[in-house]
């Protein structure tokens, strides 16, 4: 191992034996683990992944006739113009 490489030792509890066996069969264990970590880190800040999940959830909800906007919908909003809303916010 080159001098500037860092190493880490990991231990497996007896109940994680199947994970140990899985990893053991990999040819390049370090490369495999690094790849997993990278994927995980990308997922955390990946907005497109978040958007994809959000879209999937909304699709499932709408397929089941659940409309999220209904909860926060401003009722009779059509009667209040932006001007009215402005007046109300200024004077009340």
């Amino acid at each position, binding site marked *: 191992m080159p001098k500037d490489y860092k190493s880490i030792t990991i231990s497996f509890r007896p109940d994680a034996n199947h994970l140990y066996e899985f990893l053991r069969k990999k040819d390049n264990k370090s490369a495999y683990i690094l790849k997993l970590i990278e994927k995980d880190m990308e997922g955390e800040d990946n907005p497109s992944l978040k958007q994809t999940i959000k879209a999937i959830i909304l699709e499932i909800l709408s397929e089941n006739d659940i409309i999220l906007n209904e909860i926060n919908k*401003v*009722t009779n909003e059509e009667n*209040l113009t932006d001007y009215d809303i402005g*007046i*109300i916010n200024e*004077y*009340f």
Partner: protein
Amino acid sequence: MSKTTPLTIFKNKKLKEEYEEFIRQSGETIHFVVNDEHFLFKIQNLYLLQEGIGSLLLRPELKSRNSVQIDIGTLNVSVNSFSSLIPHLDSTFSNSYGINTLFSTLRERLAMDYGVTVHYKDLKQIINDRILVVEGKKMLDSTAIIEETIENHAKQIIASVKAQVSLNNTEISFVGGGSILLCEELKKLLPNATFEPDSQFCTLKSFYRIMEAKLHAQRL
């Protein structure tokens, strides 16, 4: 959360701040027991709104008109004036011509004329029946006395409004539980006024619309 605020407090900045703090309980947990059920909550956003705004936000035509909302309650009569939706605080006031004043006057009058003690709880029924019935016996001439007393009370209310607010070119709305009780007499005095069908809850419904507008503005 919106909270109806007495006009005397609403028009005074310092009192209003104190009232807000009192209702919010400094954001601490508030504990209520209603019908043996416990409610715990904290108030984050509180809007103090003036009492008696009535149907202002329920009738679209009032958005472009001068309007006066006269809220006849148990203790007070609150009068609110608006141009379009803009409140005129200088023409907004409350006085003590609530239904309790009418009850007291009528009670005294009936006690004097018939020598009977009239209980407070019976007064609403007497006003609705327009007749005093003493132990099953109808006091036929009491109708004129009752009607006269109610009429005088209605006149007092209208005179107190007219003394401070112009009713010309203005939509007049009567709201509050008292307006149901006095409806007949008030209609004789101001035939073109509107009596809100949901008079006891229309201020609450208008508050709801104000909160909707505030919520809407927050989202923009």
